């Protein structure tokens, strides 16, 4: 059994960089059981005896956030042999606040005092031996950027694990609190292991619900404890929880005052403050923000990203597809198998992979914005607007990316810590019209509204409106109800982004998508191809005699109230699940025109058979809202980490689509139907 080293620390303490340096290429990303919190693990570089587990970035071990609960449970039940606590030297007090809580779990703690180079550049000093003595923990000075101290860190960690050295010094609270803690200790000391006694005692004193449940105290003991706490709370005129927090910070102020010298007085401006004065300035903040967003969007989706799309289409269609077709035919493969492989799987996977370059570029910029500290400011600037409809400032980024493709948009919701906000963002992001829906709109606008430019743009307006209305309505439901999540957010100092970290971050996100394309999408593409090209007796037939067509005939009546009850349109909605742009291709195929583009004049004329202007608009609305494509559903599944929530999202989106299209068609026919 390898030994386990847990890596703990505040967000923005440089923990992830240290983890990357310690584990090298051995790391793998998963999720903590049952929750969407990311779990990263890896062996120490070149050492299979020690596993490093990267715990979520947290500020405290309170019972209120998922990340903190996951960390607590792991420290108590996962029994790591050592905690490496990454501490940002430039933000000492708040970082050590977590350290004091880690020490209380009874697990040996080794402190990696990170960002020492920045501290020195600021002209500040920390007397490390003094600090180490006060905390009772060994301290190694590190800088993940210049890799200083990392070898020492590993050596000390391995040494501490082997020796199983004891834990650090616990924080001392004020006398009345310590007296109460001692009384509680005597009441619960038979219930918990001796080395975790201090931790449990403090948690009991804080009324920690989770710990109380876990201890399952007898009524008598619970009552005794309640009396002890009450009397302290009364005499000190404060709640137990805030007494502990206050004393903890007080204790730390005492320590840092002795060993931490700051060159800069409180209230004077650092370089980071000066940058921030401009970037979040009352008048400049919004213009700068929109300029940055437009720039990212332009590079990733429009110019550079779009260039790559052409290449990938060429690569999969003309190069791989065509040559494999030739090869298969040459060795005498039957026509249906060639069709399945080339038109089904390769075309399907190819159409999804075309988004990879756009996504990679987007993820690169997002990682860059996160790493340099701008992302927190985006949330700061946008929070006011998004809070109005139940989302947070961080929901803006996914919505923006959603105008390109819902898949990276849904994945970008990762940066939203609050689970409720994240789920709602994942659910609503596909309402923003993505690039793949545009050909569908173009086709129908071309056929029915050739002279109205506003019909296509109205889709964006309708989409945004749907996000706002859904947000307000969903907030009233049980699943999303409750007070808004606290928006108490650190605004980290700006710093130069670290290229290596940014690239690792980008790749972490991107590779998951590529993996999905190779599995789910490949299978789904093959399945739809078989359905649309074979009969129930598995003979190769034209689309109108296929299994898909008969399914289309079966479900078509569902769409009659929406104004498009023909089997051809029903089939197009089904294939639209694979990728929205296939709706256009499906019309081409079922009309016997082959694979045509949305501007084709014969197609424009023939589509007229299925719709009138009102049902055409109703169909556009349905396409805009209905369950997104397979790739986006896959991304939803991944971000929700729950089949139940994925289905809820699909049903909600399809429900909105159906209702909105129904209203558009029925009301439209009432108002304008007579002339048609």
């Amino acid at each position, binding site marked *: 059994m390898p030994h386990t080293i847990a890596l703990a620390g505040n967000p923005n303490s440089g923990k992830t960089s240290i983890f990357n340096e310690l584990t090298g290429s051995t790391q793998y990303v998963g999720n903590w059981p049952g929750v969407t919190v990311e779990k990263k693990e890896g062996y120490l570089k070149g050492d299979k005896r020690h596993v490093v587990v990267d715990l979520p970035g947290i500020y405290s071990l309170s019972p209120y956030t998922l990340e903190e609960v996951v960390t607590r449970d792991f420290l108590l039940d996962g029994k790591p042999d050592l905690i490496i606590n990454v501490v940002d030297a430039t933000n000492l007090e708040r970082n050590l606040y977590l350290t004091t809580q880690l020490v209380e779990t009874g697990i040996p703690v080794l402190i990696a005092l990170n960002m020492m180079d920045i501290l020195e550049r600021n002209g500040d000093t920390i007397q490390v031996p003094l600090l180490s003595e006060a905390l009772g923990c060994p301290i190694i000075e590190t800088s993940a950027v210049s890799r200083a101290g990392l070898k020492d860190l590993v050596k000390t960690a391995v040494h501490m694990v082997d020796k199983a050295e004891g834990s650090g010094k616990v924080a001392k609270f004020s006398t009345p609190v310590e007296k109460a803690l001692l009384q509680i200790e005597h009441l619960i000391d038979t219930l918990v292991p001796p080395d975790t006694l201090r931790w449990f005692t403090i948690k009991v004193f804080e009324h920690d619900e989770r710990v109380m449940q876990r201890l399952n105290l007898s009524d008598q003991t619970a009552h005794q404890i309640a009396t002890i706490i009450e009397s302290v709370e009364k005499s000190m005129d404060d709640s137990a929880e805030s007494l502990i927090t206050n004393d903890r910070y007080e204790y730390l102020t005492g320590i840092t005052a002795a060993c931490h010298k700051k060159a800069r007085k409180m209230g004077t401006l650092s370089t980071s403050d000066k940058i921030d004065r401009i970037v979040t300035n009352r008048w400049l*903040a919004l213009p700068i923000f929109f300029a940055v967003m437009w720039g990212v969007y332009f590079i990733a989706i429009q110019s550079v990203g779009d260039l790559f799309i052409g290449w990938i289409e060429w690569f999969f269609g003309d190069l791989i597809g065509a040559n494999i077709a030739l090869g298969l035919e040459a060795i005498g493969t039957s026509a249906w198998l060639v069709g399945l492989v080339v038109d089904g799987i390769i075309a399907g996977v190819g159409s999804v992979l075309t988004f990879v370059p756009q996504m990679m570029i987007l993820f690169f910029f997002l990682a860059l914005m996160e790493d340099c500290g701008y992302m927190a400011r985006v949330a700061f600037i946008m929070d006011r607007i998004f809070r109005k409809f139940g989302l947070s400032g961080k929901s803006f980024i996914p919505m923006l990316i959603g105008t390109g493709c819902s898949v990276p948009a849904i994945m970008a919701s990762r940066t939203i810590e609050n689970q409720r906000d994240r789920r709602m963002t994942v659910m609503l992001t596909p309402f923003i019209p993505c690039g793949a829906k545009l050909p569908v709109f173009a086709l129908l606008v071309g056929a029915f509204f050739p002279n109205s430019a506003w019909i296509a743009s109205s889709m964006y307006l309708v989409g945004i409106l749907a996000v706002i209305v859904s947000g307000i309505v969903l907030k009233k439901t049980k699943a999303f109800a409750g007070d808004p999540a606290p*928006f108490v957010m650190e605004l980290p100092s700006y710093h130069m982004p670290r290229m290596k970290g940014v690239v690792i971050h980008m790749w972490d996100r991107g590779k998951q998508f590529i993996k999905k394309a190779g599995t789910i999408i490949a299978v789904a593409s093959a399945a739809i191809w078989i359905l649309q090209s074979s009969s129930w007796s598995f003979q190769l037939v034209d689309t109108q005699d296929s299994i898909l067509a008969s399914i289309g005939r079966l479900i078509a009546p569902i769409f009659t109230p929406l104004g498009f009850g023909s089997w051809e349109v029903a089939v197009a909605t089904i294939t639209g699940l694979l990728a929205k742009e296939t709706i256009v291709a499906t019309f081409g195929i079922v009309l016997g025109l082959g694979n045509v583009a949305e501007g084709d004049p014969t197609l424009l004329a023939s589509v007229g058979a299925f719709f009138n202007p009102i049902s055409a608009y109703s169909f556009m609305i349905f396409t805009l809202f209905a369950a997104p494509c397979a790739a986006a559903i896959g991304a939803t599944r991944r971000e929700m980490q729950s089949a139940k929530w994925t289905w809820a999202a699909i049903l909600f989106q399809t429900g909105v689509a159906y209702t909105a299209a129904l209203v558009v068609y029925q009301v439209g026919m009432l108002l304008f139907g007579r002339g048609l």
Partner: protein
Amino acid sequence: MNLGEARPGEMVTVRKVGGEGATMRRIMDMGITKGCKVIVRKVAPLGDPIEITVRGYELSLRKSEASNILVEA
């Protein structure tokens, strides 16, 4: 006075952190505790949230949350 009423540039001392549960704990965990000094930096372009300096770092919180923090100049 509460922290939500303090003006940008003002330095205040925390007297009491009110409110309850997750929000109160979060505010205190971030270092806003009795007796500590806080500088109000700025208000976001749309009027909310606000940015403060506490224990040497920058923190943003909504005015509704800041109104639970009693301070004096």
